[in-house]
């Protein structure tokens, strides 16, 4: 097995790993990203509520600093990366006097973080978001909360990294990390050996295992399962803001979050599990999600539920880790329990700073690409009738529910880090995400994916892990 050499090997293709790879790829350092799954953004970066938060915890933490450093730039970044983002604001709702008191605590904490925040009266809450329950006694307005497509963000980071020369290796689970006498390390997967000056551990829920392999700090990580319900845009279209429940000391609770697709997410729950592959929903929890969401926004009880899903976020003994390992000087940990999307741009810069301070020779590379080509979207184009001038295939609608055209699907299948499964197409375009859940379009998408990946209708991948045929 040959060994390839890089300045930095990034372990993990979630939103943080891809963001770090993208940042490094714009410097003179060579970078390789290793992802165990068959696509980037397969775990927590796929299964989250899609909120780029303005506030997540108390002041004076690195996480808060990174949120603050990222938040003002989402519009500019998402424009460059061709990622859907809207700064629609959030509204935290108090349903009792006790919760209203708690809101005041949250207001003070958010204000201390430098976040724009304002207490609203019951009347102002209803005015800001008429769908909120009349039982609301007070609210907290957080105008800098935004909604983002986390899958498109992760795929875009990966694609821009690849465009700038980063090597993205999928289906390569790290099996061992060996340290060499010259201070470098060899990262060994089932398919290759990668000699690296530095190793970035962005393995999310697997970060503990990666650190252990490298002989690093004993990071304790475990999967925390969240269950979600997706509701149709016939309801969600009327929703103006993100509606949060009042954060209590032990939980952030169930929220109602509009998505960039026009649907809304209810959730998440938080249950610690042992198996990172346990992504099963259960009827009792799903019923509870809807009931709790309906306490905030009663109309969700009547809304049409498109689908339910579960995902695991990387819980741990520390809420986040962005630091050089205490034992292994060329190992840098980059993990966050839940705010990975929200810190990703600033965390990538911070990681570069850490690496440079540790001796990485990385200077800005003139001429590096800073943007991806824009792929217009039929559903959201301001003048859809002009899209066929760009590509006649915009007129070929494949996913009827979400109005995704063949042009968008072809772009996803030929991106620098392309979709290689039906699910990968869905992640990048929203095709199959709508109320019929692909009953009209999945066959067509499977044929397009089969052609792009060079396999037959049986061997085409449905998800990154499983094929259509058995």
């Amino acid at each position, binding site marked *: 097995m040959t060994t390839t050499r890089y300045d930095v090997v990034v372990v993990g293709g979630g939103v943080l790993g891809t963001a770090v790879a993208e940042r490094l790829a714009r410097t003179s350092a060579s970078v390789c990203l290793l992802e165990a799954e068959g696509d980037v953004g397969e775990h927590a970066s796929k299964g989250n509520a899609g909120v780029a938060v303005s506030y997540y915890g108390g002041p004076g933490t690195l996480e808060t600093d990174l949120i603050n450093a990222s938040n003002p730039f989402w519009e500019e970044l998402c424009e460059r990366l061709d990622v859907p983002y809207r700064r629609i604001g959030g509204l935290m709702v108090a349903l009792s006097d006790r919760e209203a008191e708690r809101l005041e605590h949250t207001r003070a904490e958010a204000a201390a973080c430098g976040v724009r925040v304002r207490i609203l009266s019951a009347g102002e809450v209803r005015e800001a978001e008429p769908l909120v329950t009349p039982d609301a006694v007070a609210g907290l307005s957080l105008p800098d909360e935004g909604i983002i497509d986390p899958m498109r963000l992760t795929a875009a980071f990966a694609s821009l990294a690849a465009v700038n020369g980063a090597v993205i290796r999928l289906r390569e689970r790290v099996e061992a990390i060996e340290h060499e006498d010259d201070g470098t390390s060899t990262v060994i997967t089932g398919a290759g050996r990668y000699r690296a000056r530095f190793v970035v551990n962005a393995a999310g829920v697997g970060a503990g295992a990666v650190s252990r392999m490298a002989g690093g700090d004993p990071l304790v990580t475990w999967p925390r399962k969240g269950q979600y319900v997706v509701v149709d845009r*016939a309801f969600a279209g009327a929703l103006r803001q993100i509606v949060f429940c009042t954060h209590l000391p032990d939980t952030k609770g169930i929220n109602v979050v509009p998505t960039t697709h026009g649907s809304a997410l209810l959730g998440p729950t938080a249950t610690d599990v042992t198996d990172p592959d346990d*992504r099963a929903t259960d009827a009792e929890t799903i019923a509870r999600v809807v009931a709790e969401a309906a306490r905030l926004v009663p109309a969700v009880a009547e809304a049409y539920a498109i689908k339910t899903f579960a995902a695991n976020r990387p819980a741990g003994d520390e809420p986040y880790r962005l630091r050089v390992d205490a034992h292994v000087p060329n190992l840098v940990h980059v993990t966050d329990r839940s705010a990975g999307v929200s810190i990703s741009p600033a965390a990538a810069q911070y990681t570069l700073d850490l690496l440079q301070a540790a001796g990485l020779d990385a200077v800005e590379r003139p001429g590096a690409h800073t943007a991806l080509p824009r792929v217009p979207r039929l559903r959201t184009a301001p003048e*859809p009738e002009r899209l066929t001038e760009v590509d006649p295939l915009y007129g070929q609608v494949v996913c009827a529910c979400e109005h995704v055209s063949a042009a968008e699907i072809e772009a996803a299948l030929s991106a620098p880090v392309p979709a290689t499964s039906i699910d990968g197409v869905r992640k990048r375009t929203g095709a199959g995400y709508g109320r019929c859940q692909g009953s009209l379009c999945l066959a067509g998408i499977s044929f397009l994916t089969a052609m792009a990946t060079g396999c037959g209708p049986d061997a085409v991948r449905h998800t990154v892990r499983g*094929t259509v045929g058995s």
Partner: protein
Amino acid sequence: MSRLLVVGAGPSGLGCATELARSGGHDVLLIDRVPVAGGESGWDKPEVRDLVRAATGAGVEFRLGAAAAVWTDRRLLLTAPGAIRWVEADHLFYAGGLRPATASDLNIVGERPAGVLPATVADHLLSTGVRLWKRAVVVGDGPWAPHIAERIRGAGGHVTAVGAGSPTWADQVVAGGTGLEVLGSDRVHTLRVVDGTRVRDLVCDVVILASGPLPNRNVDGALAEGAPHVTFVQPLDARGIAPRAQAGRAIAAHWARTNGGNP
């Protein structure tokens, strides 16, 4: 002259458009996303050809190979390869056909692995002639179920019907229970049928969702009953070409009577 649009050129859309054109005073444009009429019934059936001839004879205009996306302010956004256009009209008849119930519609919980597929998709995939599955579980007895089961069994596969009454098309029949749960992290390997406290595990390599039918709704602005200037032509009970065409004609006739031709 009022301008009427019928979206969906399956039997019910063909029947509806023909009736509207015959009732007089209307300009009727029949639209379908695929380049042939017939919808799920198929373009090559003699009964479909008869319905197309009747529509043409009544003066219905066809726009095939164009998908409707948005209905707003009495304008329909029509998309066809190389041409995306707004078409103005007075009223929209939506005959977009039927679909199987989704996992969410059926309250199916558990994992979301590869190999859980809507019946319509399974039908398309099987039509390639490639042998895909050895042990299928078909949930429900919607109109797709018998045909799919026949294809799988014809290729040597085994079919278990769940929650489909007592169909003749399955090798094994299992009652629906109170809940269904999908197991398998890479591919589906089991459908668990829960009935109160009893659990029955059905080992399988595909789960095909064939319950329903439910109406397809995918034109923004024409998603739910009560949408302005929209009539839905999606009979749920009529099965077969002639009954569906008849149901389409009945809906059109009722509309013409109650609206007096004023959309």
